[in-house]
């Protein structure tokens, strides 16, 4: 059986069957994982990309790895509907439903379960890249201002410079009345609060 596999792979290269019948209702599933070039270059580097990719059948019942060219195969699989998942750090792969039929071996029946897209051949590509870290925003004056301390200073400044403006717009008579009221109530002014303010 193993001797036949390379031959099958060649067939697969020419876009033909993904399954090969073996003895006693056991089949092989052959496929390929393709990670497009260009993906994964930005962001963080992925050490040993291809060698850390795992292909899992039916929730870990069988696990296999990729050859340098991205091909993989599962041996001795019974007929039925199977689920293939690809685990690769940095990429999001949709699980793939694969039908291995006993009646017409060699027929490809595969579909992505995430978007129900049918596959004519078992070539698995990542749906998207996964970025595990937040991107740190570059320093900006806004972020400093947005921080609690920045807000505190901003509020101080606003009170110091906007409040007098508000006071200016008031009716002078009203203001005088208010000032008198304040004096009569003995509301301490800022200067009297501070040490040395007791002088006056």
């Amino acid at each position: 059986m193993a001797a036949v596999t390379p031959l099958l792979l060649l067939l697969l290269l020419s876009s033909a069957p993904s399954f090969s019948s073996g003895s006693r209702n056991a089949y092989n599933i052959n496929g390929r994982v393709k990670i497009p070039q260009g993906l994964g270059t930005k962001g963080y580097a992925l050490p040993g990309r291809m060698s850390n990719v795992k292909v899992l059948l039916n929730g870990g019942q069988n696990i296999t790895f990729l050859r340098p060219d991205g091909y993989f195969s599962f041996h001795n699989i019974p007929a039925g509907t199977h689920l293939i998942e690809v685990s690769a750090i940095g990429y999001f792969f949709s699980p793939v439903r694969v039908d291995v039929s006993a009646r017409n071996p060699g027929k490809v029946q595969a579909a992505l379960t995430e978007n129900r897209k049918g596959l004519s051949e078992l070539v698995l590509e990542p749906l998207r890249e996964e970025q595990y870290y937040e991107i740190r925003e570059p320093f900006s004056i806004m972020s400093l201002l947005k921080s609690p301390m920045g807000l505190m200073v901003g509020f101080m400044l606003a009170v110091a410079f906007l409040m007098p403006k508000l006071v200016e717009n008031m009716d002078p008579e009203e203001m005088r009345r208010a000032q008198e009221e304040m004096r009569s109530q003995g509301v301490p002014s800022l200067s009297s609060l501070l040490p040395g303010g007791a002088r006056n």
Partner: protein
Amino acid sequence: MAIRSFLILFILFFFSSLNPILSLYEDQVGLVDWHQQYLGKVKQAVFHTHKTGRKRVVVSTEENVVASLDLRQGEIFWRHVLGSNDVIDGIDIALGKYVITLSSGGSILRAWNLPDGQMVWESSLRGPKHSKSLFLVRTNLKIEKDNIVIIFSNGRLNAVSCMDGEVLWEKDFEGESLKVQQVIQPPGSNLIYVVGFASSSLFEMYQINALNGELLKHESAAFSGGFLGEVSPVFSETVVALDSTGLILLTISFQNGKISFHQMPISNLVKDSFGPAKIIPSSVIGIFAIKMNAVTIVIRVKDESKLEVVEKTNHETSISDALSISEGQQAFALVQHASHEIHLRVKLAHNWDDNLLKESVKMDQHRGLVHKVYINNYIRTDKSYGFRALIVMEDHSLLLLQQGEIVWSREDGLASIIDVTTSELPVERDGVSVAKVEHNLFEWLKGHMLKLKGTLMLASPQDIAAIQSMRLKNSEKSKMTRDHNGFRKLLIVLTRAGKLFALHTGDGHIVWSHLLQSLQKSKVCQHPIGLNLYKWQVPHHHAMDENPSVLVIGKCGPSSDAPGALSFVDTYTGKELSSLSLVHSVAQVIPLPYTDSTEQCLHLLIDADKHAHLYPKTPEAISIFEREFSNIYWYSVEDDNGIIKGHALRGKCTGEVADEVCFDTRELWSIVFPSESEKIIATVTRKLNEVVHTQAKVIADQEVMYKYISRNLLFVATVALKGSVEIGSVTPEESWLVAYLIDTVTGRILHQVTHHGSQGPVHAVFSENWVVYHYFNLKAQRYEMSVIEIYDQSRADNKDVWKLVLGKHNLTSPISLYSRPDVITKSQSYFFTHSVKAIAVTSTTKGITSKQLLIGTIGDQVLALDKRFLDPRRTVNPTQAEKEEGIIPLTDPLPIIPQSYVTHALRVEGLRGIITVPAKLESTTLVFAHGVDLFFTQLAPSRTYDSLTDDFNYALLLITIVALLAAIFVTWTLSERKELQENWR
């Protein structure tokens, strides 16, 4: 008015600035999390030191790991974890550049590139029949520049090319009863000998041409005494075996195709022989070892029939495989154990009397005995041979010895954790000295100045590196005392080797480790198995001076009625306080919520005969227990029969030996699932120590729903018998999954739901009043997750405030589980992309913080998923009120946000379990995920709303305060001047 609107604006601005930060930045990796990589107990090791360049050792382990290690430091170059049913049978290095692994009962052969671990080729081998015997034979045979590797598996002999994995030739051994014992390939010849036993007394020998698989000779000879166990090859055409009684040694030689037997009773060799012996196979020419009870006897074979005992020892002895060091010379190592030391001897195969090397190495006795030894040689500067030995210890650790010293060691026992618990660290006693504070203050200021520089983008690359290393090497986090936030704890883990480790949560270093006496192989207990860890003594309040301790429960042997063993271990010092060998078995352990005056927790151990045994065995504990006698209920699950039973206590044990702490039990109820249609595949309950903050849930329209919170709820999932097999072999019509919620005191089924066309495996988690479970939907061919929330209707009319004021509510009415609870359930299902290995839920001290599900995916990552995504009240178009409440619009699939992987870009290879422990700080929970790797981190499901984050900039705060003060003084002088002017006017 203007001021008020300004304030509102300000507040809005303030809150919008607190943007939700879901995950961490790349430079925060390692601040609160740590990741450790392990391998498991080494089964086989092959050195690769021939060429210049990096020296490596390739190992395969019992955790199904194949890895390449740096021989200098023991670091992992690369590592692959194979599937759990793809057990590695053998490894070898071929062509000097490929690692060959044979796995899955000899049916899969893979080659990995030695430098980087990339798989090069994979071959599937099949044979005519299933057989246990497996051999991977190292050869130096060459066919046109290609090396071949000879594999015997499943009754077929294969020769495989090392270049591309092609099978060059194959030869079947169809003989019905033939049990192949050895495949021998004499070095320097093109012959292969396959020897084995047929029926019980026939010895068979096949001679095969290694180049083309042609059968050259086939001989067989009968031996009336029969054979026992394994054979050991001593010469290329001679093997040693035992007769069926195990008392007579047989030397079988098949030189020139003629089979001849020579018998030698063991009693002739050893005066005081003790019963049947066992052969320890070795590959050393002319030498083999037998073991009788605890005595190891090394025997040398001279010529054909002459056997000579060269060593007889009571010490545990391990013999390495042969290592050919030069033309025709073979060396091997012998390791013997003597209390605190191990003695390593390296000898030449044909010269027993002289040692090439003799070393004694001091060994920590908590590593146990030496289980395996592998040797490798190097040439010293003076052209003589030096040897290094790789040894595997009883606690599964791996050590490299060279020149009488341990060069490196790996604690690979941590790859197989059975159970985890936590313990607090000691309270800090005396304050630190003043000098230290000052030093710290200066460092502290300097650090914050650097941080400020970083924030303002003024830092040079060196500064950035300094900031990063400063953050990682925060001495605070690995301190050996309790901290205010409860982040520093000890993780107590029990490994399969029967060793207990204490890991510090700060940086993961091993605080202490202890090989438990009760879980060591002894005369009474041949196959001890560790089961569980429980908190035995958690001192607080009045027993503050006591050290906390844990209870380790184990049993002898895998059978259900094997006697149990207990150990009590102090978690501060790691000392075993006491250990007990029990007379009864341990089927179930129930930690009771009662403690005695020394804060020892009461535990009830149920044995296989359904008797309950109380620990600790003190009169005080018994009196506490008798008070609560009628309030103790438990349940048991019999997966095989499909029965769940509820139990209660009846009275003191009758008959047998009068034992104060033994109690009889009675069966209260039982639920029998129809065995022809349903099979229990998962049962889950709430965590015992979970805290629920509020029983009521206020929903959008000011309504109140009361959560049905009971500690006695059990979630059970059953599948149709056909659905209990693996995915791919059933159709949706013949498979269904039923989920039950069962009250374990009354046995009442509170809720039941059937998912047609679904099957297991089911992973579930139960918390508060909800359960979330994960299963496979065959119709949609996708994984699904469902949530069931259970609410108490009987208290639903308590929402009228007037009723509460007038006392007309039923809140004080006694709640009894015997009255039929009036509950309603809400449920919803969603699609989930990945297969799942484990599910856990975050837990916090007071249960106020919202929850996150921690999902261990098939890719060995841990995903944090907010519980709000699994809310049965989600609808496609939530109303405004519902949106305000925080209900997310319904989507079929659950979102997988890469930033919410708590393991970020790491994998916890071979993930088995996720444990969450609350920190003292309400917002934070500690997460520990274990498998072959260990991973620990802190999580804040609703962000750290109750403390400042680590990157809080104190320097900026100081500067702000200074600026404010300056502003105050400026305005003061200004106002003073203005007042003066006004006075002058």
